[in-house]
């Protein structure tokens, strides 16, 4: 048999396995996990677009106008400067005050005429508060904050996708490739094919990788698109033409490599260890604590390589304890090409060990 024939066999196995992996009822929770951030970003985008729509209905002023409005100005001055506001509400309130006169406490109440005006400059809203015709406070809030949204996405990607969704999703997908078939009592069909066990392993890994990549890379990219959607226009376009496309590509690459790294580990674990919860727990612990380890040992964690691939560092509050900072931040990230090469080599090594496990497999459904 030639290497080409074996490769074709592996592709046939992958194609047949994909149906099973995608159609399996036990995969449904994985789709939910992968799509959850995309749904949240989409809902957030809808909310922003609704707010923008409402703000635009009242008219848009030039961005410089908001800067020129200062506290102490009269209503007329502001109206002359900025025109009619998007929202305008007047009402009278009673304000109480207390003073002492001749050793007595005197309470007074007087009427105050208030007015709230809201202006919108296309991305920010200014809330102006007038009392008795004078501007008492000015609160400018951005409706859209692209930089903040990108930072939130970076956090979601690193803390949710890499540490949680891809980890547990790959656990569900790759453990089932052999162990699931053992439980369904269908593994013998594969073992009775005229294919080496290594070829079977490669085919199944490819199927799992393709399924996990479609689900998680797809989920991450949908979330990225949902994050960009409300910023459609000059801001997003400039970002996309600058670093945006490269950022998207690196997030996609990190998801792909995450599926390969965790997938190979869980596939190997399913072939060597009967109870999958044990290796999953050990791996989770190892990945979570890798920040404490010397740099050499850190390189044995999948997360180290994945974090090196992320284009934007995950946001971290200044008051985060040092101990937690160690857990969350990788030491000296690698250049992306080295991270890809390192993780590929690591996955290949793990799959090589898994192949030895595949050669040992025996069909004994009664005990599994």
């Amino acid at each position, binding site marked *: 048999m030639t290497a080409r024939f074996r490769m074709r066999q592996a592709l046939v196995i992958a194609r047949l396995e994909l149906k099973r992996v995608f159609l399996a009822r036990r995969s449904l929770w994985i789709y939910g996990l992968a799509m959850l951030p995309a749904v949240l970003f989409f809902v957030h985008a809808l909310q922003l677009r609704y707010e923008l729509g409402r703000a635009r209905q009242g008219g848009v002023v030039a961005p410089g106008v908001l800067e020129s409005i200062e506290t102490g100005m009269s209503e007329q001055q502001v109206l002359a400067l900025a025109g009619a506001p998007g929202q305008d509400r007047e009402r009278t309130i009673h304000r109480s005050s207390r003073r002492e006169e001749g050793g007595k406490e005197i309470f007074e109440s007087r009427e105050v005429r208030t007015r709230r005006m809201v202006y919108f400059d296309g991305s920010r809203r200014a809330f102006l508060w007038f009392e008795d015709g004078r501007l008492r406070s000015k609160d400018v809030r951005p409706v859209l904050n692209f930089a903040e949204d990108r930072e939130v996405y970076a956090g979601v990607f690193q803390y949710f996708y890499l540490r949680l969704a891809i980890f547990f999703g790959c656990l569900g997908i790759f453990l089932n490739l052999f162990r699931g078939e053992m439980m369904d009592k*269908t593994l013998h069909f594969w073992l009775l094919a*005229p294919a080496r066990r290594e070829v079977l392993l490669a085919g199944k890994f490819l199927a799992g990788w393709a399924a996990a990549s479609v689900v998680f890379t797809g989920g991450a990219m949908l979330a990225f698109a949902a994050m960009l959607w409300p910023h459609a226009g000059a801001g997003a376009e400039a970002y996309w033409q600058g670093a945006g496309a490269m950022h998207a590509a690196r997030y996609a690459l990190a998801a792909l490599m995450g599926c390969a790294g965790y997938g190979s580990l869980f596939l190997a674990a399913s072939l060597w260890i009967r109870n999958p919860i044990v290796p999953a727990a050990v791996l989770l612990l190892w990945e979570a604590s890798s920040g404490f380890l010397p740099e050499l040992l850190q390189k044995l964690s999948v997360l180290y390589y994945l974090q090196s691939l992320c284009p934007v560092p995950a946001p971290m509050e200044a008051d985060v304890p040092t101990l937690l900072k160690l857990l969350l931040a990788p030491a000296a990230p690698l250049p992306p090409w080295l991270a890809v090469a390192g993780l590929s080599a690591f996955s290949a090594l793990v799959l090589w060990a898994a192949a030895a496990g595949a050669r040992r497999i025996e069909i*004994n459904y009664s005990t599994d």
Partner: protein
Amino acid sequence: MSAQEIVFDNVSKFYGDVLGVNRIELRIPPGLTSIVGPNGAGKSTLMNLMCGLIHPDRGEIRVLGIPPRDPERLMRITGYATQFDAAPRWATGFDFVVSSLLLFGYSSSMAERLAWAALEQAGLTDAARRKVNSYSKGMRQRVRLAQALAHDPQVLVLDEPLNGLDPVVRAETIALFRQLAASGRHVVISSHVLQEVDVISDRVVLMANGMIVAEGDIRGVREEIHEHPSQFLIRCRQPARLASLLFERAPVVEARLMEGDGALLVLTRDRGEFTRILTRLASEGLGIDSIVPADENVHALYEYLVGGSA
């Protein structure tokens, strides 16, 4: 080791502390060979070992010269219909057979052609487009047979292949086995229903408790254990008198009157001498209607060999 035989050389397999098979020495030539024994005798273990689904703890196996640890070569010449009843949920009968053929490197069109031919051989073309998990037990049995046959293997291993088949399909399937065996292939089937294989097999392998207790053709097996009495069922008008005469003149170990139907079951250690004397007695007016050897089926042999535990 012969490249024309399936060879087990001192093979043992244990499942932890539980014995699967022990010290199996066996050579299976072309033709139809039946592995017979009660549940737990080790039949499926033997077949799984032969096809590489499990590996021996001791000893060596060669299937036409190929070790079972080389599935790439072995499964090209071998088709195995296991006893495992599960089937992939997504597959129709047709898809199920085609998908296995694609792994042989056949093109899609060739795989489809071969699959139809195999499904036709197994009598399953009408249900080919239905999902396998909607099949009856007999249909699932047949689709596994079709899958095992589809690539025209030299060695066909079938674990309890007649289970769940209706009488017509059973007769057709048996005819198919005979035809395949007659064409020079190795057809190895297992059964715990003894009567269903003794009439179709060229050879039998009798197993009990993980060991082979006898092997060869049925008559040969019987002769191998010549020290054990032969058994005859004699129908006559005076069975009590015949019993007494036989005890007097022939090497009879035991004679049992079968109540109510004028029959006598006799055990003898010397088959030749017994039949010579019986022929002489038949001419003495005892009204003997028929003499039937009662132990030339597998069941009787099996009872002898394993002490009636079948």
